């Protein structure tokens, strides 16, 4: 590099040839194959432009490695900025608007019932438990579960009817 700084073209060509091999190995271990050649060229251009910053009193390899590493970090940043992820074709799905709305409306209606009636309806009508399972789960008798469901549904019907009239 000292000779290149003085303008020796032959020495510079030999140096660039050796640098190219070194840089190829350096970037091949650190970058995806598609980016390696570009990174090598980028580093060669930078080394050429910044050759005056090399101090001939110091070893050459650490100077070159510092520049190669800087350009590597630069390239990683650029890759991060330019990262594009293809969306899978099956990503489009039906919306959940009606289900969400129904759940919200039902929750609002159930909140107007007595807690025991609402719980019995939730267990048997929404979550699929049998009357006996609901009885075992709540500790209430089977007949009480049935009565709560019956009265709860009747009240729900009347609430809905009133609201329909009001609308």
């Amino acid at each position: 590099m000292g000779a290149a700084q003085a303008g020796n073209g032959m020495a510079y060509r030999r140096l660039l040839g050796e640098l190219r091999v070194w840089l190829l190995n350096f970037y091949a271990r650190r970058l995806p194959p598609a980016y390696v050649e570009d990174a090598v060229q980028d580093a060669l251009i930078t080394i050429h432009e910044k050759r005056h910053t090399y101090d001939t009193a110091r070893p050459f390899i650490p100077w070159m490695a510092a520049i190669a590493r800087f350009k590597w970090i630069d390239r990683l940043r650029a890759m991060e900025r330019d990262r594009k992820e293809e969306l899978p074709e099956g990503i489009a799905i039906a919306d959940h608007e009606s289900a969400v709305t129904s759940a919200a409306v039902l929750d609002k209606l159930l909140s107007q019932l007595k807690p025991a009636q609402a719980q019995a309806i939730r267990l048997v009508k929404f979550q699929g438990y049998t009357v006996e399972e609901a009885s075992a789960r709540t500790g209430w008798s089977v007949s009480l579960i049935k009565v709560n469901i019956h009265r709860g549904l009747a009240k729900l019907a009347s609430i809905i009817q009133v609201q329909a009239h009001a609308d």
Partner: protein
Amino acid sequence: MQTDRLVDHLVADLVPVKPRRTSDDLVLLATIGIVELALFFLWGRMRADTMIALSLPSFWWKLGSLTVLTIAGAATATRSFDPLVSPRKGLRLLALLAAGAFLAGWAIEPDHVATAALRAISLWRRGLDCVCSMVVLSLPAVVALIVLMARGAPTDRNGSSLAIGATSAAWGAFVFAFDCPHDDPCYIAIWYLVGCSIVTLIGSQVSRRMMR
């Protein structure tokens, strides 16, 4: 194949170059600083009560602290333009020096800090004038350091840009200290800190964007 052509192009483009020396950068910076200071004095911006101020310990504290910070910052920034030199140690030293300067200022006038701080804040119009002056006076240092950075090969983008911002801020405050009529350490600590923070932020952001 493309790389072969690039090598041919680079060899054809080869011209002798003069190796970069950090000392050359420092001499250039000092020259720019002296010219700016001379123009500043010729413009008649030196404070009218300079002779009185020279007898105040707070004036010397202000000037001395900013001189040390400017020199340490310039050395850190220009050294970091060498690809093998990290500015991190220099930046830590700068932070310690700044903290030491604040402590020294507190030692000069340890009493009634809260009252002095309130008084300093109440002088916010003058404070903002000081901040604006510091920003303008730091511009030559920002430009000079960015030019030197472009000639060098810094490899720590964040560190070098922060060193450029901090050095420019210290330099702008140093030049302004000859004009500033305030010697109250609390006023200086508050408003110089605001001015230096703004210059550091602007200088580091601009230089960071221009670093290749």
